[in-house]
């Protein structure tokens, strides 16, 4: 069992509400779910869609073929009919689309008429649609009713009951009328976790005890801001919407100096503004975490779409030389753990952690039967009060064996915490002395970086034991490449090497031997210039000859990537 549903329509029609409800129904029913969204940078109109794949086996990407198209506007039909499987069905409302299709693959459900007769507002048509989809699938409606009760509970009895009646009528109508529907679902099992990349980063930050979040809203990072703000009171977090990204990064630097873990989130243009502040954090050795949610550039680019175009920008951001740790999770689960790790390493080494995600990972929903929380850690590396007072002569930037100086919290003892964006002495006062300058560079950069390398995990290996073909990818391409490996390994000894801890490279280099041994290495990136392959060459000297690049702002689909890889294998 492996079905895909596409909900197409204009912005503002409730595509997200319907998609989100359906995804949660499937997940609660125990199916594995993967969703991705496609939307334009506008509030109303245009064409958007929400694609849901659900199966009784784990899924981690979208397919081109769909089995059920819910067409909320007329445009959805010519745009997506070709994608429909031969046994697929289109659900539409002829009175709303002002068009009638006399084809057994079309099911006309009077969504708005039902919404009206069941006492709901026109928006209740969305609930009718959810009911109709569940009816077409022949799925038992109990879970849907439970979820609707939870969703509409706060809106009062009247609204809740209208929605339940509407869902029931939609369900019955579709079940009865869809004679050509031929879906066969696996039975219900234990409900799954359903989580987006955005939510996973939010929880990762909470698990690391984030206490300050400042940002300027920018798609696709805003969801993280919303998530943290929603939980601010419960978790004692100060959240502030800064006047611009320059203020945001400087605020979190101030907050970190004052004693707490702090974070910001932005996208490329906002990150460009933060770069000055990044160097400030580097010089003052102030730990901070930045989420850079990539979208296609340059400049405003495609604001709501996806790309992995900022890897080298993130890596080389900031004037001067100072260490940064760059993470690029591939799944929500990795996002949770790497966010936790990003905070830990940032504070342990008093450096900057950057978490690279993209629109695709931010918005995608993944389901898990289990999420491992045993690896989540929180260690406080800061000194306060008596602990700090015990140090006889406190120097914020003290030279040490490891390069890590005591990080004290101001105001908690009589010791003064002094730091400067100018080069400074151990105490933190500005200097021009050549010898101290040299020692400070060595402390900040070389000593720490060599220790950080030891903390970085090897890339993730997945696939054939003794591979002849190696697919290299990073960040959000994990799910697609993994599924493609599953398909291809029946015919070829193929594996994936996925990088989520991007920089510095891990000290353990066993994975490099895998590349040297392989007959065919293909680098896959969602950008035009193979940025990761360039980094790989810079760090290891290895040159990759074969590349698959996608830079139209849309994510890879499984069939598409499979064809591209098969093409390269054939030509090899």
């Amino acid at each position: 069992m492996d079905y895909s549903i596409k909900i197409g329509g204009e912005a503002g029609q409730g595509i997200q509400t319907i998609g989100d409800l359906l995804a949660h129904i499937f997940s609660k029913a125990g199916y594995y779910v993967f969703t991705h969204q496609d939307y334009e940078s506008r509030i109303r109109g245009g064409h958007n869609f929400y694609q849901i794949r659900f199966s009784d086996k784990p899924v981690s990407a979208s397919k081109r073929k769909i089995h059920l198209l819910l067409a909320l506007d007329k445009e959805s039909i010519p745009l997506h009919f070709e994608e429909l499987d031969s046994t697929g069905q289109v659900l539409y409302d002829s009175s709303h689309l002002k068009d009638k299709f006399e084809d057994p693959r079309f099911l006309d459900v009077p969504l708005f008429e039902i919404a009206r007769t069941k006492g709901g507002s026109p928006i209740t048509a969305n609930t009718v649609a959810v009911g109709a989809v569940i009816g077409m699938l022949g799925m038992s409606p109990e879970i849907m009713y439970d979820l609707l009760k939870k969703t509409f509970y706060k809106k009062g009895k009247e609204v809740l009951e209208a929605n339940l009646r509407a869902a029931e009528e939609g369900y019955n109508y579709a079940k009865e009328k869809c004679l050509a529907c031929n879906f066969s679902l696996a039975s219900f099992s234990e409900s799954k976790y359903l989580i987006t990349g955005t939510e996973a980063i939010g929880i990762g930050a909470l698990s690391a005890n984030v206490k300050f979040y400042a940002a300027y809203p920018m798609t696709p990072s805003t969801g993280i801001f919303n998530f943290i703000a929603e939980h601010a009171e419960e978790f004692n977090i100060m959240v502030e919407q800064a006047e611009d990204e320059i203020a945001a990064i400087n605020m979190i630097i101030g907050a970190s100096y004052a004693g707490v873990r702090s974070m910001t989130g932005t996208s490329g243009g906002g990150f460009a503004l933060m770069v000055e502040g990044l160097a400030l954090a580097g010089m003052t050795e102030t730990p901070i975490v930045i989420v850079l949610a990539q979208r296609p550039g340059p400049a405003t680019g495609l604001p709501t779409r996806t790309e992995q175009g900022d890897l080298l920008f993130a890596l080389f951001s900031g004037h001067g030389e100072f260490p940064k740790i760059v993470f690029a999770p591939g799944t929500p689960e990795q996002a949770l753990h790497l966010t936790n790790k990003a905070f830990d390493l940032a504070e342990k080494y008093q450096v900057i952690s950057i978490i690279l995600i993209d629109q695709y990972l931010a918005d995608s929903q993944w389901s898990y039967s289990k999420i491992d929380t045993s690896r989540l850690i929180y260690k406080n590396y800061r000194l306060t009060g008596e602990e700090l007072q015990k140090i006889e002569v406190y120097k914020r930037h003290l030279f040490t064996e490891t390069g890590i100086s005591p990080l004290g919290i101001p105001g908690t003892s009589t010791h003064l915490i002094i730091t400067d964006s100018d080069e400074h002495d151990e105490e933190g006062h500005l200097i021009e002395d050549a010898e101290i300058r040299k020692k400070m560079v060595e402390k900040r950069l070389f000593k720490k970086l060599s220790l950080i390398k030891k903390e970085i995990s090897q890339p993730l290996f997945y696939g054939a034991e003794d591979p002849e073909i190696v697919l290299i990818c990073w960040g959000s391409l994990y799910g697609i490449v993994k599924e493609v490996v599953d398909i291809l390994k029946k015919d070829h000894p193929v594996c994936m090497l996925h990088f989520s801890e991007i920089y510095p490279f891990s000290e353990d280099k066993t994975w490099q031997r895998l590349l040297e041994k392989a007959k065919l290495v293909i680098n896959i990136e969602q950008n035009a210039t193979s940025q990761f392959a360039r980094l790989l060459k810079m760090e290891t000297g290895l040159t990759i000859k074969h590349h698959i690049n996608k830079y139209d702002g849309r994510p890879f689909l499984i069939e598409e990537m499979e064809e591209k890889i098969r093409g390269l294998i054939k030509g090899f």
Partner: protein
Amino acid sequence: MASLKDFKGLTPAWCPGCGNFAILKAFNEAMVELNINPHEIVIVSGIGQAGKFPHYTRCNTFNGLHGRTLPVATGIKLVNPNLKVIAVAGDGDCYGEGGNHLIHAIRRNVDIKLFVHNNQIYGLTKGQASPTSTKGMKTKTQPFGVISEPLNSLLLAIALDCSFVARGYAGKVEHLKSLIKEAILHKGFALLDILQPCVTFNKINTYEWYNQRVYFLDSFYDPTNKVLAFEKAMEWGDKIPLGILYKKEKNSFEEQIPVLKNGPLFERPYYLEKVKNLLEKFK
């Protein structure tokens, strides 16, 4: 009890005769008179001669970037409301590069004291015009003289309903000290613009020029009257008023944040269990 010795910092690298020396003296004496200890204060500064100020007194110091003083100060105060947070900036730093941050810091009304060392010139980069330079002032980068209007920061602050707006002068140290003390004791954002002659580069706004023009607002002046405050803020030329031009009682930003009610954020407990419970809600 704090003493002046406690506030003795590094030897200043300012030009002899610089107005900054008087500001430093007034500041240190004000702290001692208010019995504030060095570790209870954080001075945040940016770049410029004023930016070096915290190194020349003794306290917690964050000397950051040009123009970015206020966001850093905001971050510090919003994490630990118990700290006395002072932002020190020059006119280029705060009114030029950091102009946007000034507007929003006033809007927030975080309990930060902003002392602007206003010498109407860029000193550290050797004598270009600043946002407060007199129209017509010729410099190497303004060969035809300054064309833009000078920024009237006090007028701007009053228009934004800033809770404390004052002007001091480095040539009147005792008065300046009293303004620093009033600003520190005030609750909310305080802007203290300090006229500070630059003896090396500003040949127009000299001590002599100021001494002929400045006067103190007297005890009959009502700083809560906004219309009057606007009038006084517009007075510039033959007569320049010194003192508190405008004052308004209002809640500080941090007072209105529920999570800051219990003191510094680093003292708040951490529970991984709570995070795990939240994760369960995704099932």
